[in-house]
Protein backbone atom coordinates (compact mmCIF):
# COMPACT_ATOMS: atom_id res chain seq x y z
CA UNK A 1 0.00 0.00 0.00
CA UNK A 2 1.19 3.54 -0.81
CA UNK A 3 0.33 6.05 1.89
CA UNK A 4 0.86 9.80 1.87
CA UNK A 5 0.33 11.75 5.07
CA UNK A 6 0.19 15.53 5.14
CA UNK A 7 2.75 15.93 2.34
CA UNK A 8 3.89 19.50 1.66
CA UNK A 9 6.17 20.76 -1.09
CA UNK A 10 7.08 24.28 -2.16
CA UNK A 11 9.38 25.58 -4.88
CA UNK A 12 10.52 28.97 -3.66
CA UNK A 13 7.39 30.88 -2.77
CA UNK A 14 5.18 28.59 -4.82
CA UNK A 15 3.52 26.20 -2.38
CA UNK A 16 2.56 23.32 -4.70
CA UNK A 17 1.43 20.64 -2.24
CA UNK A 18 -0.27 21.85 0.93
CA UNK A 19 -1.01 18.69 2.83
CA UNK A 20 -1.73 15.67 0.67
CA UNK A 21 -3.35 12.70 2.40
CA UNK A 22 -4.15 9.67 0.30
CA UNK A 23 -3.84 5.90 0.30
CA UNK A 24 -3.54 3.58 -2.66
CA UNK A 25 -4.26 -0.07 -1.95
CA UNK A 26 -2.23 -2.91 -3.46
CA UNK A 27 -3.46 -3.75 -6.97
CA UNK A 28 -5.52 -0.57 -7.18
CA UNK A 29 -5.37 1.78 -10.17
CA UNK A 30 -5.62 5.38 -9.04
CA UNK A 31 -5.86 8.20 -11.54
CA UNK A 32 -4.91 11.68 -10.36
CA UNK A 33 -6.54 14.51 -12.25
CA UNK A 34 -6.24 18.26 -11.89
CA UNK A 35 -5.37 21.39 -13.82
CA UNK A 36 -1.94 22.14 -15.22
CA UNK A 37 0.54 23.22 -12.57
CA UNK A 38 -1.42 21.78 -9.66
CA UNK A 39 1.45 19.50 -8.63
CA UNK A 40 0.38 16.12 -10.04
CA UNK A 41 3.84 15.29 -11.37
CA UNK A 42 5.46 16.63 -8.19
CA UNK A 43 3.27 14.20 -6.25
CA UNK A 44 4.61 11.10 -8.00
CA UNK A 45 8.15 12.48 -7.98
CA UNK A 46 7.83 12.80 -4.20
CA UNK A 47 6.74 9.17 -3.93
CA UNK A 48 9.72 8.08 -6.03
CA UNK A 49 12.10 10.25 -4.03
CA UNK A 50 13.05 12.33 -7.07
CA UNK A 51 11.78 15.37 -5.15
CA UNK A 52 12.07 15.54 -1.37
CA UNK A 53 8.87 16.74 0.33
CA UNK A 54 9.25 19.64 2.78
CA UNK A 55 6.99 17.96 5.31
CA UNK A 56 4.82 14.89 5.71
CA UNK A 57 5.44 11.18 5.33
CA UNK A 58 5.32 8.83 2.35
CA UNK A 59 5.42 5.08 2.90
CA UNK A 60 5.26 2.12 0.55
CA UNK A 61 4.22 -1.04 2.38
CA UNK A 62 5.40 0.62 5.57
CA UNK A 63 8.85 1.58 4.20
CA UNK A 64 9.59 5.29 4.29
CA UNK A 65 10.25 6.59 0.76
CA UNK A 66 13.06 8.85 1.94
CA UNK A 67 14.93 6.49 4.22
CA UNK A 68 14.43 3.14 2.47
CA UNK A 69 17.42 1.60 0.70
CA UNK A 70 17.20 3.32 -2.71
CA UNK A 71 18.07 0.50 -5.09
CA UNK A 72 15.72 -2.02 -3.50
CA UNK A 73 13.00 0.64 -3.13
CA UNK A 74 13.18 1.79 -6.75
CA UNK A 75 13.38 -1.78 -8.05
CA UNK A 76 9.69 -2.11 -7.10
CA UNK A 77 8.68 0.74 -9.44
CA UNK A 78 8.22 1.21 -13.15
CA UNK A 79 7.50 4.61 -14.64
CA UNK A 80 6.24 5.84 -17.98
CA UNK A 81 7.29 9.46 -18.41
CA UNK A 82 5.21 12.05 -20.21
CA UNK A 83 7.67 12.48 -23.09
CA UNK A 84 8.85 8.87 -22.98
CA UNK A 85 12.26 9.93 -21.59
CA UNK A 86 13.94 7.28 -23.73
CA UNK A 87 17.73 7.42 -23.75
CA UNK A 88 18.67 8.92 -27.12
CA UNK A 89 22.06 7.24 -27.24
CA UNK A 90 20.77 3.69 -26.82
CA UNK A 91 18.80 1.51 -29.24
CA UNK A 92 15.24 0.63 -28.34
CA UNK A 93 16.00 -2.82 -26.90
CA UNK A 94 18.68 -1.42 -24.58
CA UNK A 95 16.22 1.24 -23.42
CA UNK A 96 13.66 -1.45 -22.60
CA UNK A 97 16.22 -3.75 -20.98
CA UNK A 98 18.12 -0.95 -19.23
CA UNK A 99 17.40 -2.18 -15.71
CA UNK A 100 18.14 -5.76 -16.72
CA UNK A 101 21.58 -4.83 -18.04
CA UNK A 102 22.91 -3.36 -14.80
CA UNK A 103 22.81 -3.52 -11.07
CA UNK A 104 22.12 -6.44 -8.80
CA UNK A 105 19.71 -8.25 -11.11
CA UNK A 106 22.01 -7.97 -14.12
CA UNK A 107 21.30 -10.53 -16.80
CA UNK A 108 23.34 -11.72 -19.82
CA UNK A 109 22.87 -9.41 -22.82
CA UNK A 110 21.17 -12.10 -24.94
CA UNK A 111 18.65 -12.89 -22.20
CA UNK A 112 18.00 -9.18 -21.60
CA UNK A 113 17.48 -8.63 -25.32
CA UNK A 114 15.02 -11.54 -25.50
CA UNK A 115 13.08 -10.11 -22.55
CA UNK A 116 13.06 -6.67 -24.19
CA UNK A 117 11.72 -8.09 -27.45
CA UNK A 118 9.04 -9.96 -25.49
CA UNK A 119 7.98 -6.74 -23.74
CA UNK A 120 7.99 -4.87 -27.07
CA UNK A 121 5.67 -7.54 -28.46
CA UNK A 122 3.47 -7.12 -25.38
CA UNK A 123 2.97 -3.45 -26.22
CA UNK A 124 2.29 -4.20 -29.87
CA UNK A 125 5.68 -3.49 -31.41
CA UNK A 126 7.49 -5.80 -33.83
CA UNK A 127 10.93 -7.23 -33.01
CA UNK A 128 12.44 -5.16 -35.85
CA UNK A 129 11.85 -2.05 -33.74
CA UNK A 130 14.36 -3.35 -31.18
CA UNK A 131 17.41 -2.16 -33.08
CA UNK A 132 16.07 1.27 -34.04
CA UNK A 133 17.11 4.41 -32.19
CA UNK A 134 14.41 6.35 -30.26
CA UNK A 135 14.68 9.29 -32.68
CA UNK A 136 13.50 6.98 -35.49
CA UNK A 137 10.18 6.27 -33.76
CA UNK A 138 6.85 8.10 -33.91
CA UNK A 139 5.39 9.64 -30.72
CA UNK A 140 3.01 6.70 -30.24
CA UNK A 141 5.81 4.16 -30.70
CA UNK A 142 7.99 6.05 -28.21
CA UNK A 143 5.17 5.87 -25.67
CA UNK A 144 4.87 2.13 -26.23
CA UNK A 145 8.63 1.68 -25.84
CA UNK A 146 8.42 3.74 -22.63
CA UNK A 147 5.62 1.46 -21.47
CA UNK A 148 7.67 -1.63 -22.34
CA UNK A 149 10.57 -0.20 -20.31
CA UNK A 150 8.26 0.52 -17.39
CA UNK A 151 7.12 -3.12 -17.24
CA UNK A 152 10.43 -4.75 -18.26
CA UNK A 153 11.27 -6.02 -14.80
CA UNK A 154 7.65 -6.79 -13.79
CA UNK A 155 7.39 -4.04 -11.18
CA UNK A 156 4.85 -4.12 -8.35
CA UNK A 157 4.01 -0.43 -8.76
CA UNK A 158 3.75 1.49 -12.03
CA UNK A 159 3.39 5.25 -12.52
CA UNK A 160 2.09 6.73 -15.73
CA UNK A 161 2.66 10.44 -16.28
CA UNK A 162 0.28 11.77 -18.95
CA UNK A 163 0.36 8.52 -20.94
CA UNK A 164 -1.77 9.84 -23.80
CA UNK A 165 -0.43 13.42 -24.04
CA UNK A 166 0.30 14.38 -27.63
CA UNK A 167 -1.23 11.25 -29.17
CA UNK A 168 -4.12 11.02 -31.61
CA UNK A 169 -7.42 9.57 -30.29
CA UNK A 170 -6.84 6.13 -31.79
CA UNK A 171 -3.32 5.83 -30.36
CA UNK A 172 -4.62 7.18 -27.03
CA UNK A 173 -7.20 4.40 -26.99
CA UNK A 174 -4.51 1.81 -27.75
CA UNK A 175 -2.27 3.08 -24.92
CA UNK A 176 -5.20 3.23 -22.47
CA UNK A 177 -6.20 -0.33 -23.32
CA UNK A 178 -2.59 -1.52 -22.96
CA UNK A 179 -2.25 0.12 -19.57
CA UNK A 180 -5.47 -1.41 -18.34
CA UNK A 181 -4.56 -4.88 -19.63
CA UNK A 182 -1.02 -4.77 -18.28
CA UNK A 183 -2.02 -3.49 -14.85
CA UNK A 184 -4.74 -6.14 -14.60
CA UNK A 185 -2.56 -9.04 -15.77
CA UNK A 186 0.42 -8.05 -13.60
CA UNK A 187 -1.74 -7.22 -10.59
CA UNK A 188 0.32 -4.09 -10.20
CA UNK A 189 -0.58 -1.00 -8.23
CA UNK A 190 -0.85 1.93 -10.63
CA UNK A 191 -0.94 5.70 -10.29
CA UNK A 192 -1.72 7.59 -13.46
CA UNK A 193 -1.64 11.33 -13.98
CA UNK A 194 -3.75 12.62 -16.81
CA UNK A 195 -6.00 15.38 -18.12
CA UNK A 196 -7.61 12.97 -20.52
CA UNK A 197 -11.06 12.01 -19.22
CA UNK A 198 -11.21 9.05 -21.60
CA UNK A 199 -8.06 7.72 -19.92
CA UNK A 200 -9.67 8.26 -16.53
CA UNK A 201 -12.69 6.17 -17.45
CA UNK A 202 -10.64 3.42 -19.09
CA UNK A 203 -7.80 3.11 -16.58
CA UNK A 204 -9.07 4.07 -13.14
CA UNK A 205 -10.48 2.09 -10.27
CA UNK A 206 -10.35 5.24 -8.17
CA UNK A 207 -9.93 8.92 -9.00
CA UNK A 208 -8.35 11.70 -6.98
CA UNK A 209 -8.64 15.34 -7.95
CA UNK A 210 -5.78 17.61 -6.95
CA UNK A 211 -6.63 21.28 -6.62
CA UNK A 212 -5.17 24.09 -4.54
CA UNK A 213 -2.41 21.84 -3.23
CA UNK A 214 -4.78 19.30 -1.60
CA UNK A 215 -6.85 16.29 -2.67
CA UNK A 216 -10.12 17.99 -3.47
CA UNK A 217 -12.09 14.80 -4.17
CA UNK A 218 -11.29 11.12 -3.96
CA UNK A 219 -13.53 8.21 -4.82
CA UNK A 220 -14.41 5.34 -7.18
CA UNK A 221 -14.42 6.16 -10.88
CA UNK A 222 -18.13 5.31 -11.25
CA UNK A 223 -18.99 8.13 -8.84
CA UNK A 224 -17.27 11.00 -10.64
CA UNK A 225 -20.41 11.95 -12.57
CA UNK A 226 -22.52 12.10 -9.42
CA UNK A 227 -19.98 13.44 -6.94
CA UNK A 228 -21.75 16.77 -6.48
CA UNK A 229 -18.37 18.46 -6.17
CA UNK A 230 -18.42 21.66 -8.26
CA UNK A 231 -14.65 21.56 -8.87
CA UNK A 232 -14.73 17.97 -10.12
CA UNK A 233 -17.84 18.65 -12.20
CA UNK A 234 -16.23 21.63 -13.90
CA UNK A 235 -13.04 19.68 -14.56
CA UNK A 236 -14.55 16.49 -15.97
CA UNK A 237 -16.94 18.43 -18.22
CA UNK A 238 -14.27 20.93 -19.29
CA UNK A 239 -16.35 23.99 -18.47
CA UNK A 240 -14.75 27.43 -18.55
CA UNK A 241 -17.19 28.69 -15.90
CA UNK A 242 -17.02 27.42 -12.37
CA UNK A 243 -15.01 27.61 -9.17
CA UNK A 244 -11.73 26.75 -10.94
CA UNK A 245 -10.29 29.92 -12.43
CA UNK A 246 -9.57 29.52 -16.13
CA UNK A 247 -6.74 32.07 -15.94
CA UNK A 248 -4.04 30.72 -13.61
Amino acid at each position, binding site marked *: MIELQNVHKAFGRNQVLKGIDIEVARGESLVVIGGSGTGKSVLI*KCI*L*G*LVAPDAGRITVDGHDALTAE*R*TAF*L*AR*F*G*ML*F*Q*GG*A*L*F*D*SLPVWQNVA*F*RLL*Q*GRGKRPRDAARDTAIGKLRRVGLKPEVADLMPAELSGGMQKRVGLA*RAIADDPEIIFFDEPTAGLDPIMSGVINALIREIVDEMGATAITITHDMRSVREIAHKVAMLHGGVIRWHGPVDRIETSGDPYLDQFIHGRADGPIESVR
Partner: protein
Amino acid sequence: MSAGAAGQQQQRRRQGSAALRALAALGRATRHLLAAIGHFSRYALLTLMHMLRGPFYLRELGAQLYAIGYLSLPVVGLTALFTGGALALQIYAGGVRFNAEAVVPSIVAIGMVRELGPVMAGLMVAARVASSIAAEIGTMKVTEQLDALVTLSTDPMKYLTVPRVAAATLAVPVLVGVGDAIGIFGGYMVGITRLGFSEVAYLRNTVDFLEFWDVASGLVKGAAFGFIVALTGCYCGMQSGRGAQGVGRATKTAVVASAVMILAANYLLTELFFSA
Protein backbone atom coordinates in the same frame (compact mmCIF):
# COMPACT_ATOMS: atom_id res chain seq x y z
CA MET B 1 16.17 75.20 5.96
CA SER B 2 16.53 76.92 2.60
CA ALA B 3 15.30 75.24 -0.57
CA GLY B 4 18.92 74.95 -1.83
CA ALA B 5 20.15 73.18 1.32
CA ALA B 6 17.20 70.79 1.25
CA GLY B 7 17.94 69.96 -2.39
CA GLN B 8 21.60 69.27 -1.60
CA GLN B 9 20.61 66.99 1.30
CA GLN B 10 18.22 65.05 -0.94
CA GLN B 11 20.92 64.67 -3.60
CA ARG B 12 23.40 63.38 -0.98
CA ARG B 13 20.78 60.90 0.22
CA ARG B 14 20.21 59.72 -3.36
CA GLN B 15 23.96 59.27 -3.91
CA GLY B 16 24.22 57.42 -0.62
CA SER B 17 21.43 55.01 -1.51
CA ALA B 18 22.89 54.48 -5.01
CA ALA B 19 26.23 53.58 -3.43
CA LEU B 20 24.46 51.18 -1.05
CA ARG B 21 22.61 49.58 -3.95
CA ALA B 22 25.88 49.10 -5.86
CA LEU B 23 27.48 47.60 -2.76
CA ALA B 24 24.51 45.28 -2.27
CA ALA B 25 24.72 44.16 -5.90
CA LEU B 26 28.44 43.47 -5.50
CA GLY B 27 27.73 41.51 -2.32
CA ARG B 28 25.05 39.45 -4.08
CA ALA B 29 27.35 38.71 -7.02
CA THR B 30 30.17 37.68 -4.66
CA ARG B 31 27.82 35.46 -2.68
CA HIS B 32 26.56 33.78 -5.89
CA LEU B 33 30.13 33.28 -7.10
CA LEU B 34 31.22 31.74 -3.81
CA ALA B 35 28.13 29.52 -3.76
CA ALA B 36 28.87 28.36 -7.32
CA ILE B 37 32.51 27.60 -6.39
CA GLY B 38 31.27 25.67 -3.35
CA HIS B 39 28.77 23.65 -5.39
CA PHE B 40 31.33 22.92 -8.08
CA SER B 41 33.96 21.85 -5.52
CA ARG B 42 31.46 19.57 -3.83
CA TYR B 43 30.52 18.08 -7.21
CA ALA B 44 34.22 17.50 -7.99
CA LEU B 45 34.72 15.80 -4.63
CA LEU B 46 31.66 13.60 -5.11
CA THR B 47 32.89 12.65 -8.59
CA LEU B 48 36.28 11.61 -7.19
CA MET B 49 34.58 9.55 -4.48
CA HIS B 50 32.32 7.84 -7.04
CA MET B 51 35.38 7.12 -9.22
CA LEU B 52 36.75 4.98 -6.41
CA ARG B 53 33.51 3.08 -5.68
CA GLY B 54 31.56 0.78 -8.00
CA PRO B 55 29.50 0.04 -9.92
CA PHE B 56 31.65 1.00 -12.90
CA TYR B 57 30.10 1.35 -16.32
CA LEU B 58 32.98 0.13 -18.49
CA ARG B 59 30.94 0.10 -21.69
CA GLU B 60 30.11 3.78 -21.14
CA LEU B 61 33.77 4.47 -20.38
CA GLY B 62 34.75 2.85 -23.68
CA ALA B 63 32.16 4.88 -25.59
CA GLN B 64 33.41 8.09 -23.98
CA LEU B 65 37.06 7.25 -24.67
CA TYR B 66 36.09 6.95 -28.32
CA ALA B 67 33.97 10.12 -28.34
CA ILE B 68 36.33 12.31 -26.32
CA GLY B 69 39.69 10.86 -27.33
CA TYR B 70 39.53 9.38 -30.79
CA LEU B 71 37.07 11.83 -32.30
CA SER B 72 39.06 14.82 -30.97
CA LEU B 73 42.24 13.69 -32.76
CA PRO B 74 41.63 15.61 -36.02
CA VAL B 75 40.94 18.97 -34.37
CA VAL B 76 43.82 18.62 -31.89
CA GLY B 77 46.19 17.42 -34.62
CA LEU B 78 45.36 20.25 -37.03
CA THR B 79 45.63 22.87 -34.28
CA ALA B 80 49.00 21.49 -33.19
CA LEU B 81 50.32 21.34 -36.75
CA PHE B 82 49.60 25.01 -37.44
CA THR B 83 50.71 26.10 -33.98
CA GLY B 84 54.06 24.30 -34.35
CA GLY B 85 54.63 25.89 -37.76
CA ALA B 86 53.73 29.38 -36.55
CA LEU B 87 55.91 28.92 -33.45
CA ALA B 88 58.91 28.03 -35.61
CA LEU B 89 58.39 31.16 -37.73
CA GLN B 90 58.02 33.39 -34.66
CA ILE B 91 61.06 32.02 -32.86
CA TYR B 92 63.13 32.31 -36.00
CA ALA B 93 61.99 35.92 -36.54
CA GLY B 94 62.87 36.77 -32.92
CA GLY B 95 66.10 34.73 -32.87
CA VAL B 96 67.50 36.45 -35.97
CA ARG B 97 67.71 39.71 -33.99
CA PHE B 98 70.47 38.29 -31.79
CA ASN B 99 71.88 35.53 -34.01
CA ALA B 100 70.09 32.75 -32.17
CA GLU B 101 68.32 31.11 -35.11
CA ALA B 102 69.74 27.75 -34.10
CA VAL B 103 67.48 27.55 -31.03
CA VAL B 104 64.34 27.22 -33.18
CA PRO B 105 64.07 23.39 -32.99
CA SER B 106 64.66 23.15 -29.24
CA ILE B 107 62.36 26.07 -28.37
CA VAL B 108 59.63 24.71 -30.63
CA ALA B 109 59.92 21.32 -28.95
CA ILE B 110 60.02 22.67 -25.41
CA GLY B 111 57.29 25.22 -26.09
CA MET B 112 55.05 22.59 -27.62
CA VAL B 113 55.43 19.87 -24.99
CA ARG B 114 55.43 22.12 -21.93
CA GLU B 115 52.86 24.77 -22.85
CA LEU B 116 51.23 24.93 -26.23
CA GLY B 117 50.57 21.22 -26.67
CA PRO B 118 48.60 20.77 -23.42
CA VAL B 119 46.94 24.19 -23.50
CA MET B 120 45.87 23.98 -27.15
CA ALA B 121 44.65 20.40 -26.72
CA GLY B 122 42.82 21.38 -23.53
CA LEU B 123 41.14 24.36 -25.17
CA MET B 124 40.18 22.39 -28.27
CA VAL B 125 38.73 19.61 -26.14
CA ALA B 126 36.94 22.25 -24.04
CA ALA B 127 35.34 23.69 -27.18
CA ARG B 128 34.43 20.30 -28.58
CA VAL B 129 33.72 18.15 -25.55
CA ALA B 130 32.62 20.42 -22.68
CA SER B 131 29.95 21.89 -24.95
CA SER B 132 28.69 18.54 -26.17
CA ILE B 133 28.66 16.99 -22.68
CA ALA B 134 26.78 19.99 -21.23
CA ALA B 135 24.29 19.98 -24.12
CA GLU B 136 23.74 16.23 -23.90
CA ILE B 137 23.25 16.07 -20.14
CA GLY B 138 21.26 19.33 -20.15
CA THR B 139 18.91 17.88 -22.77
CA MET B 140 18.65 14.67 -20.76
CA LYS B 141 17.64 16.74 -17.75
CA VAL B 142 15.05 18.75 -19.67
CA THR B 143 13.53 15.62 -21.24
CA GLU B 144 13.40 13.80 -17.87
CA GLN B 145 16.01 11.23 -18.92
CA LEU B 146 17.94 11.92 -15.71
CA ASP B 147 14.79 11.20 -13.69
CA ALA B 148 14.29 8.06 -15.77
CA LEU B 149 17.83 6.93 -14.90
CA VAL B 150 17.07 7.33 -11.20
CA THR B 151 13.81 5.40 -11.45
CA LEU B 152 15.78 2.62 -13.15
CA SER B 153 17.97 2.41 -10.02
CA THR B 154 20.93 4.07 -11.77
CA ASP B 155 22.84 6.96 -10.26
CA PRO B 156 23.37 9.64 -12.96
CA MET B 157 26.64 10.57 -11.26
CA LYS B 158 27.99 7.06 -11.75
CA TYR B 159 26.46 6.44 -15.16
CA LEU B 160 27.06 9.84 -16.79
CA THR B 161 29.65 11.85 -14.88
CA VAL B 162 32.22 9.25 -13.82
CA PRO B 163 32.74 7.64 -17.27
CA ARG B 164 33.04 11.05 -18.96
CA VAL B 165 35.46 12.48 -16.40
CA ALA B 166 37.55 9.29 -16.32
CA ALA B 167 37.62 9.09 -20.13
CA ALA B 168 38.68 12.73 -20.52
CA THR B 169 41.34 12.38 -17.80
CA LEU B 170 42.78 9.38 -19.61
CA ALA B 171 42.31 10.57 -23.20
CA VAL B 172 43.54 14.16 -23.06
CA PRO B 173 47.16 13.23 -22.11
CA VAL B 174 47.20 10.91 -25.13
CA LEU B 175 45.85 13.75 -27.27
CA VAL B 176 48.54 16.02 -25.82
CA GLY B 177 51.23 13.46 -26.71
CA VAL B 178 49.93 13.17 -30.26
CA GLY B 179 49.54 16.97 -30.48
CA ASP B 180 53.11 17.46 -29.24
CA ALA B 181 54.47 15.15 -31.93
CA ILE B 182 52.38 16.79 -34.68
CA GLY B 183 53.29 20.30 -33.45
CA ILE B 184 56.99 19.47 -33.49
CA PHE B 185 56.49 18.01 -36.94
CA GLY B 186 54.83 21.27 -38.02
CA GLY B 187 57.85 23.21 -36.77
CA TYR B 188 60.14 20.74 -38.50
CA MET B 189 58.34 21.15 -41.85
CA VAL B 190 58.53 24.94 -41.62
CA GLY B 191 62.16 24.72 -40.43
CA ILE B 192 63.39 22.64 -43.35
CA THR B 193 61.21 24.13 -46.09
CA ARG B 194 61.13 27.82 -45.15
CA LEU B 195 63.96 28.52 -42.71
CA GLY B 196 66.83 26.63 -44.28
CA PHE B 197 67.45 24.00 -41.57
CA SER B 198 68.82 20.62 -42.54
CA GLU B 199 66.63 17.65 -41.56
CA VAL B 200 69.35 16.05 -39.43
CA ALA B 201 70.32 19.25 -37.58
CA TYR B 202 66.70 20.09 -36.83
CA LEU B 203 65.93 16.63 -35.46
CA ARG B 204 69.16 16.47 -33.45
CA ASN B 205 68.48 19.87 -31.88
CA THR B 206 64.94 18.80 -31.06
CA VAL B 207 65.92 15.54 -29.40
CA ASP B 208 69.08 16.73 -27.64
CA PHE B 209 67.45 19.55 -25.71
CA LEU B 210 64.21 17.82 -24.77
CA GLU B 211 64.09 16.26 -21.30
CA PHE B 212 61.77 13.63 -19.91
CA TRP B 213 60.13 16.02 -17.45
CA ASP B 214 59.34 18.48 -20.25
CA VAL B 215 57.15 15.84 -21.86
CA ALA B 216 55.81 14.35 -18.62
CA SER B 217 54.77 17.73 -17.20
CA GLY B 218 52.74 18.40 -20.35
CA LEU B 219 51.02 15.04 -20.06
CA VAL B 220 50.17 15.68 -16.40
CA LYS B 221 48.73 19.04 -17.42
CA GLY B 222 46.71 17.22 -20.08
CA ALA B 223 45.20 14.89 -17.48
CA ALA B 224 44.29 17.87 -15.27
CA PHE B 225 42.74 19.72 -18.22
CA GLY B 226 40.77 16.63 -19.26
CA PHE B 227 39.40 16.31 -15.74
CA ILE B 228 38.43 20.00 -15.70
CA VAL B 229 36.75 19.92 -19.12
CA ALA B 230 34.58 16.85 -18.52
CA LEU B 231 33.74 17.80 -14.96
CA THR B 232 32.66 21.29 -16.01
CA GLY B 233 30.61 19.92 -18.90
CA CYS B 234 28.83 17.44 -16.63
CA TYR B 235 28.26 19.98 -13.86
CA CYS B 236 26.82 22.61 -16.21
CA GLY B 237 24.61 19.98 -17.87
CA MET B 238 23.28 18.79 -14.52
CA GLN B 239 22.60 22.40 -13.46
CA SER B 240 20.92 23.26 -16.79
CA GLY B 241 17.77 25.35 -16.68
CA ARG B 242 14.55 24.50 -18.47
CA GLY B 243 14.04 24.55 -22.22
CA ALA B 244 16.33 25.32 -25.14
CA GLN B 245 17.49 28.54 -23.52
CA GLY B 246 18.54 26.74 -20.34
CA VAL B 247 20.51 24.13 -22.29
CA GLY B 248 22.09 26.85 -24.46
CA ARG B 249 23.19 28.77 -21.38
CA ALA B 250 24.61 25.61 -19.78
CA THR B 251 26.59 24.87 -22.94
CA LYS B 252 28.01 28.38 -23.15
CA THR B 253 28.93 28.39 -19.45
CA ALA B 254 30.63 25.00 -19.77
CA VAL B 255 32.90 26.19 -22.58
CA VAL B 256 33.76 29.56 -21.03
CA ALA B 257 34.28 28.20 -17.51
CA SER B 258 36.39 25.24 -18.63
CA ALA B 259 38.57 27.47 -20.86
CA VAL B 260 39.19 29.93 -18.02
CA MET B 261 39.87 27.09 -15.57
CA ILE B 262 42.31 25.46 -18.00
CA LEU B 263 44.32 28.68 -18.32
CA ALA B 264 44.29 29.24 -14.56
CA ALA B 265 45.26 25.62 -13.88
CA ASN B 266 47.99 25.89 -16.50
CA TYR B 267 49.55 28.81 -14.64
CA LEU B 268 49.30 27.04 -11.27
CA LEU B 269 50.78 23.81 -12.60
CA THR B 270 53.60 25.69 -14.35
CA GLU B 271 54.36 27.42 -11.05
CA LEU B 272 54.33 24.07 -9.33
CA PHE B 273 56.52 22.27 -11.88
CA PHE B 274 58.95 24.94 -13.03
CA SER B 275 59.07 27.78 -10.51
CA ALA B 276 62.65 28.85 -9.77
